[in-house]
């Protein structure tokens, strides 16, 4: 980790905490009050806990699972007061995400290491590309971008504007051109210029649209013709505000272009990250990054423990 990042660390977690404050409000009212006093665990305590989990989009299935686990331990007298229950919940939540923590690594041999960004409309793919490009540059990699979103008006300009401002070359064609051909061109250009990484934007698409998912398949197919191992990473970008539809997004995008990881954006709002627990139950995909703000430094590697800690922190702060 570079020095600059260390310096930002405090500010970052503070921001994540304040961003997650609403999530904590939900957990706070349900959990904080009841968990922090040394109180007997009764039906009501467990029910409030369940409510708090549901309010953060954890989803019925994952919530039931977590609650069953906790209730069983209460039954076995492993947890005999609310403080112990609080600790157990934190550990349980962390444990569920721990398997999904994996550092994002670029294979420098690939030249270019091709990363696709896919997702539904408006999740923040283009913005994430900008932030990640900057981050990879900071690691000493030469980066190029492919403006593969040829559908949305001004998506190409958005990426170009960003590229110009940050001195990153953007390979683009006009709006309406074939996305696969843009990305293919970009891969060739990146190879010719010896770029380390190519970040390819794609148009947002709803996963239920068969023809658009087919287009995604085509882009992947065309790129693999150039380099069999490409795309090296296919990242699905999820909006933190998304509900249970995230599960369908993961499933359908994965069926079209096998996903290699997830990025969760917009965690600085009132949106809850609880959907990650539901997703984690369904897939083995690593959660590489989370976005907690507008700044470039606000795209951060995902870490389970501080994440859950931040989620539950307010309860402690408010009641402790």
């Amino acid at each position, binding site marked *: 980790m570079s020095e600059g990042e260390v310096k930002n660390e405090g500010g970052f977690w503070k921001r994540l905490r*304040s*961003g997650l*404050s*609403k999530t904590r409000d*939900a957990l706070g009212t349900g959990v904080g009050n009841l968990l922090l006093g040394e109180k007997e665990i009764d039906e009501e305590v467990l029910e409030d806990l369940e*409510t708090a989990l*549901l*309010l*953060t*989009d954890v*989803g*019925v299935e994952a919530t039931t699972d977590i609650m069953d686990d906790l209730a069983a331990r209460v039954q076995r007298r492993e947890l005999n007061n609310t403080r112990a229950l609080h600790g157990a919940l934190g550990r349980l939540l962390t444990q569920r995400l721990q398997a999904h923590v994996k550092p994002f690594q670029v294979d420098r041999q690939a030249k270019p290491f091709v990363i696709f960004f896919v997702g*539904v*409309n*408006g*999740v*923040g793919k283009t913005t994430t590309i900008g932030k990640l490009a900057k981050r990879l540059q900071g690691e000493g990699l030469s980066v190029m971008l492919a403006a593969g979103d040829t*559908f*949305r*008006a*001004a*998506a190409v*300009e*958005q990426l*170009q*504007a*960003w590229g110009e401002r940050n001195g990153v070359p953007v390979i683009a064609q006009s*709006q309406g051109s074939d996305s696969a051909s843009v990305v293919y061109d970009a891969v060739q250009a990146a190879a010719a210029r010896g770029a380390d990484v190519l970040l390819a934007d794609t148009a947002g*698409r*709803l*996963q*239920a*649209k*068969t*023809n658009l998912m087919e287009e995604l398949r085509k882009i992947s197919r065309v790129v693999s013709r150039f380099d069999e191992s490409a795309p090296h990473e296919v990242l699905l970008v999820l*909006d*933190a*505000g*998304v*509900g*249970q*539809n*995230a599960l*369908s*997004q993961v499933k*359908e995008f994965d069926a079209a272009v096998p996903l290699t990881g997830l990025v969760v954006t*917009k965690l*600085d*709002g*009132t*949106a*809850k990250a*609880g*959907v990650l627990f539901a997703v984690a139950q369904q897939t083995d995909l690593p959660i590489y990054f989370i976005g907690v703000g507008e700044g470039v430094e606000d795209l951060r590697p995902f870490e389970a423990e501080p994440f859950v800690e931040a989620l539950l922190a307010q309860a402690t702060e408010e009641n402790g």
Partner: protein
Amino acid sequence: MFDSLSERLTQTLKGLTGKARLTEENISAAMRDVRRALLEADVALPVVKEFTDKVRSRALGQVVNAALNPGEQFVKIVHDELVHVMGDANDALNLQTTPPAIVLMAGLQGAGKTTTVAKLALLLKSREKKKVAVVSADVYRPAAIKQLETLAGEAGAHFIPSSADEKPSAIAERAVGEAKRAFADVLIVDTAGRLAVDEDMMAEIRALQAQLKPIETLFVVDAMTGQDAANTARAFNDVLDLTGVVLAKADGDARGGAALSVRSITGKPIKFIGVGEKIDGLEPFYPDRLASRILGMGDLMSLIEEAQRKVDKKKAEKLARKLEKGRKFDLEDFREQLNQMASMGGITSMMDKVPGMSQLPKNVQEQVNDDQFLRMGVIIDSMTPHERRFPDVITGSRKQRIARGSGTSVPDINRLLKQHKQMQKMMKKFSKKGGMQKMMRGLSAMQGAAAGGRPPARRR
């Protein structure tokens, strides 16, 4: 896929037929099912609680209808209440003011505001013959203004330029002046996406509203939003005087519980739903359809809509005319139908959307796969145009040739011809008056035939 609520409730309430009335005790399990279904559809928890209370009080004391099963009866109560809560009828946009009528858009980042501006402009222009001007006060996101400019061009709206170094208030002031000079009937003001917790940004849009005094302030919400829809809607509603809601990206497979949350919390009507990437995709909101979807009662409506969008209308009309004239449904037409089915994602993806299909026995489900239909297409492709038009000429040696050409066997050819014959019969009934019911009966026979070449009854 989730079991539909209707099926689950039928299970839960199975023992209820004998009993006369719905009581607190005998519906408590059913209420849990309803709660779960609503949560799975992303309805916000506080709204779920309020809603289930309403359903409970409405259900209590009702006499179990002997004709309906209690599960269905219960679903109907839930469904009706949903429709009622979401607003029984569609609310139109109010533009009754001295022109230009100003419409202000608000919402989170990526909700779909800019796209909605263009869709709304096109709708007002084409359906209500309004002259529409649009302006972007999004000075933050790169190329946001350019995006609106491009879309305005497509929609044929008057685009009022703005630049990223202007203040939103200055843009607004200038835009109103220019809209007046251009004699625009409507001015739609796009704004930057903002987080409800961002106080500066919320103050900015509040000031914009105070300055513009829009007759409509529309809150755009993503149909895929989860529990957060409640928080966000409350925050925007507190800061702004909202007049309506637009549910964007409603053409996906999200159950759209956010709509119920937003409607309940703000009390403001949902005026439009956004469907599709193209700018003609803005439709009036129909509560009953969304109610079915929230309850997971199949996705038949969207299947029909998809069919309407994808099926080539000209070709369909041509076929209809042909059948009307008493001509036969030939293999050429059959091939065309196979093509259209493929363009809708094939039979498996269509079956997914039909309610109850997931309840079919596994072996029946497995028999229906896209490979068969692909093979059927290949077989027809291996025929001469003459054979396709007059399938009766296909005899022994022709069959062998077709089998070789398509890499199949003669029994495959026979099966295809038999299926075609059945379809032909169906089409004949269909083209006659009142043939619809008969066709539906024929359809179930045909499904069996498509699945294995024999009716399913014999298989089981």
